């Protein structure tokens, strides 16, 4: 399955950058969860699970690298169906944490199927548009593609996990765009979505979700409540300065002014402790990873590979951009993790597996 010569075509630079980001993530999680206690300082309980997830993620990356993506695409409907099954299972049997039902406990681990949604959707969409001669120019195909994306999206939103659900949209848009979706059509969809969005805001969103948006627009109206995170995020980032407060020296994260800093706000902690220099470094790595991946899409041997990479990387780029914007208090607080760096095993494993596919496509550009 894995030919020796493919080894020489692995994009080591991309792999290196991805691993570097994941290691940075572990370091930042270590820093922000470090426990200072009268009984003795010690490492936070979040660090080791993240390290295990990194190892498992590397295995996943190898698996998704080794199996020819065309073979995977053949089974994409099966994989997609499996995902839907898991999502339905989660809705009924999942574990509830912080008011949301997202997890399936597997031994000591908690699997979050929604995180794997992007890969499954990217596979199935790439497969659908890649096989289709007409690409995404035909509105009928577009609707079928949209439905393929919307079904898991609604299942995830029902958990409720709007943040993760929304990340499926850029996957669809990315694949469709590369498959020839007309910009005019995209504009029409966007305009059509506006009243839908307003309707959704009024009727479909839960109170706390509406409040998040309101307080983002004016955080000072409730500085202790929902606006708190936005204000604290800005303070965290701004107080970092040029070179930051130093590793494990960030006060905002260490003293828990920023809630769940190791999770959604890991980039704020990085900005606080490593400063603007660290921010530029991390942003540079992410940009490199995205551009390099898009390069892989350009080099892909077939449309399937190109769309697959495009879908995966669109979701990834959207997550990175949204999370970084939110980390600086410039976007409403949503449960959108920073891929590769945020705490969370499923997220890390899914991201690495995704890059396995990206490397897979690039590596097999010369094969038949």
């Amino acid at each position: 399955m894995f030919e020796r010569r493919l080894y020489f075509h692995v994009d080591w630079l991309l792999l290196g950058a991805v691993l570097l980001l994941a290691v940075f993530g572990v370091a930042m999680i270590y820093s922000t969860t470090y426990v200072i206690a009268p009984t003795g300082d010690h490492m936070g309980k979040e660090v080791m699970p993240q390290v295990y997830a990194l190892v498992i993620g590397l295995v996943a990356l190898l698996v998704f690298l080794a199996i020819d993506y065309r073979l995977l695409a053949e089974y994409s409907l099966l994989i997609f169906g499996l995902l839907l099954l898991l999502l339905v299972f989660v809705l009924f049997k999942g574990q509830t944490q912080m008011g949301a039902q997202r997890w399936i406990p597997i031994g000591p681990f908690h699997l979050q199927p929604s995180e794997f949604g992007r890969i499954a959707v990217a596979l199935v969409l790439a497969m659908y548009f890649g096989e289709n001669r007409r690409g995404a120019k035909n509105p009928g195909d577009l609707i079928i593609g949209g439905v393929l994306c919307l079904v898991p999206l609604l299942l995830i939103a029902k958990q409720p996990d709007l943040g993760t659900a929304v990340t499926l949209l850029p996957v669809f848009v990315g694949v469709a765009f590369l498959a020839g979706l007309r910009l005019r059509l995209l504009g029409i969809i966007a305009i059509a979505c506006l009243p839908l969005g307003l309707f959704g805001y009024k009727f479909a969103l839960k109170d706390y979700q509406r409040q998040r948006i309101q307080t983002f627009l004016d955080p000072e109206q409730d500085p202790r409540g929902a606006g708190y995170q936005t204000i604290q995020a800005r303070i965290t980032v701004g107080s970092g300065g040029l070179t930051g407060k130093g590793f494990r020296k960030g006060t905002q994260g260490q003293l828990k002014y920023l809630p769940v800093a190791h999770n959604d706000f890991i980039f704020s902690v990085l900005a606080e402790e490593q400063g603007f220099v660290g921010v530029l470094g991390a942003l540079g790595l992410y940009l490199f990873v995205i551009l390099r991946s898009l390069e892989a899409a350009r080099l892909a041997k077939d449309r399937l590979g190109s769309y697959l990479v495009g879908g995966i990387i669109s979701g990834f780029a959207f997550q990175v951009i949204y999370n970084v914007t939110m980390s600086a208090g410039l976007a409403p607080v949503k449960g959108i993790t920073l891929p590769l760096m945020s705490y969370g095993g499923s997220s890390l494993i899914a991201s690495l597996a995704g890059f396995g596919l990206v490397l897979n496509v690039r590596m097999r550009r010369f094969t038949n």
Partner: protein
Amino acid sequence: MSTNLIPDDRRSLTVRLSVVQYLVAAIFVVLAVGFWIFQIAQHEKFREMAENNQLRRLPLPAPRGVLLDRNGKVLVENQDTLNIAIVREQTKSVGDVLHVLAAATGADEAQLRDTVNRRRREPSYRPIVLIENATQEQYIAAWARRLELPGIIVEEVPARRYPAQEMAAHLFGYVGEVTIAQLQRPDYDGVEPGTIVGQAGVELAYNKMLMGSDGAKTVVVNSVGREIKQLDMQLPTTGRPLQLTIDEDLQKATEDGFTAAGFNGAAVVLDPSNGEVLAFTSRPAYDPNAFAAGIKPAAWNALNADALKPLQNRALQGRYSPGSTFKMAVALAGLEEGIITPDFKVHCAGSATFYGRPFACWAKKKGGHGTIDLRHAIEQSCDVYFYTVANMLGIDKINKWATLLGLGVKSNIDLPNELTGLVPSSKWKLETKHEKWYAGETISVGIGQGQVSVTPVSMAVYMATLANGGTRVTPHLLKAVSDGVGWKPIDPPAPQSRVTIDPDKLQAIRDGLWMVVNAAGTGGTARIQGHDVSGKTGSAQVISNQGRVAAQRAGKGGDLRDNGWFVFFAPRDNPTIAGVVFLEHGIHGGNAARVAHHILATYFAKLDAKPLPPPPTHEDLHLDYSDPYAKGGPVGSGGGH
């Protein structure tokens, strides 16, 4: 199944991928600029905000200086108490927390709200004390429900403790939260709202010295307000200990005397040589401990509503007719003005007529005192004698000498809110009533009735001045101040006035005062074997005879019994103690003399290094409850003996 890219497709794809690449790169540039604005351009602002997030300056209250008596015994001290406070920033709903706290501790919710409301402008990290001096039960109740009480903390703070409870309450005064009015005064500069300051008595008079200065600590707190570490600590400076002139044994004897007698009133005992206050009381009293950690409104209202006015410092603020105790002032005026000599005699037939009006002597029923000289007139407290001398003197000469002896003027004791008594003069009447003084009005003044009113403390000064030969000493309470290393004695304040009195003339009055106690006089109950106590009783009407009859007819209640005075100094030659015992509605001056007896007995026992006499019982005092009015009806306009 997979479709290889055909060149046409590839071109379109390349264009679209480039679009995405440029788009992503542009967004990243925007993001970098955004971070540049926050982290570089506005860094200073956010750095400060982060510091404010985590640094807290918390006051460390300074214990007040302790109060010691003249022998170094502790009179007032501090003890740690538990305060339940709220840190508003640690709670999302102050209202809910107060509700739960009120339910748990039995505190009044409306009052808790009020407390928070009053201090809502202060920084939200600063604790607001809700329940001062919390009981163990309240503390346990709050602790048990701590999960429902975010932001509620328990602080251990030094609070004032008055071990002797009601003893000398008016002297010590009490402490309380600084008032808004006080905060606006320049002498309260630098005092933070919520600080405990003196509000009465010595606590108020010497607040600055007693207060010390609060310390503060700067701590790092996490987002839920838990203290993570301490950065910097300024220890509080304890207030300076003060040594008072009070003698605890004598003070206790005074209180015991009043307790046994069961009367309200006041007593002030001085060292006549320098004005040091040896004992000072006002009854009824209050327990200053109730104020120490914030008085409950109910208790405060009860104190204010009490008809007996326990908050009034009778020694400084009560103004009463001196009755016969005023006679020495008239005698001294007569002697010094050359109107009479000690041998000047008057015939007392039980009453005398002045300006067409009869004035009775208290001894009218036994036919008067007969022909009597000054010494015996003082001893027997003969009213007719002093009507006569007063009439010869006129009001203004009486006023002059009474003032020189300390009556009708402030003593300027180092306690707040002293009131001035009144010794009338023609000038006073013209100024206040725009009328001329009638000679007939002087007659009653001669026996300390009529317009004359005095405060007990001024009576003590009066006796001290007679005792020391004319120096109107300033009564004072502060003997020494500790500067942390050693005691620094405080010089007694300068006398208010000094007058040279002819020793022979003064001696005649002193002889009379000695005879009051040690011969056939009215103050025999104050006699102490082996010690020459000199003194004078006085019984002063609180209402005119006609008024009393009218009140009785109208069935109006209220205590109308005479006030009882006893003023004294001892020993007769070179006196070392002088003072006054005033019994409100004490009926007879002799009853006051019985209380004074216990004070003097204690004083001399201490002087002689003998065991102190035990506190007297009520029966020991053999008080005279016979009401002169109940027996024989009115005894003329004067009365008093």
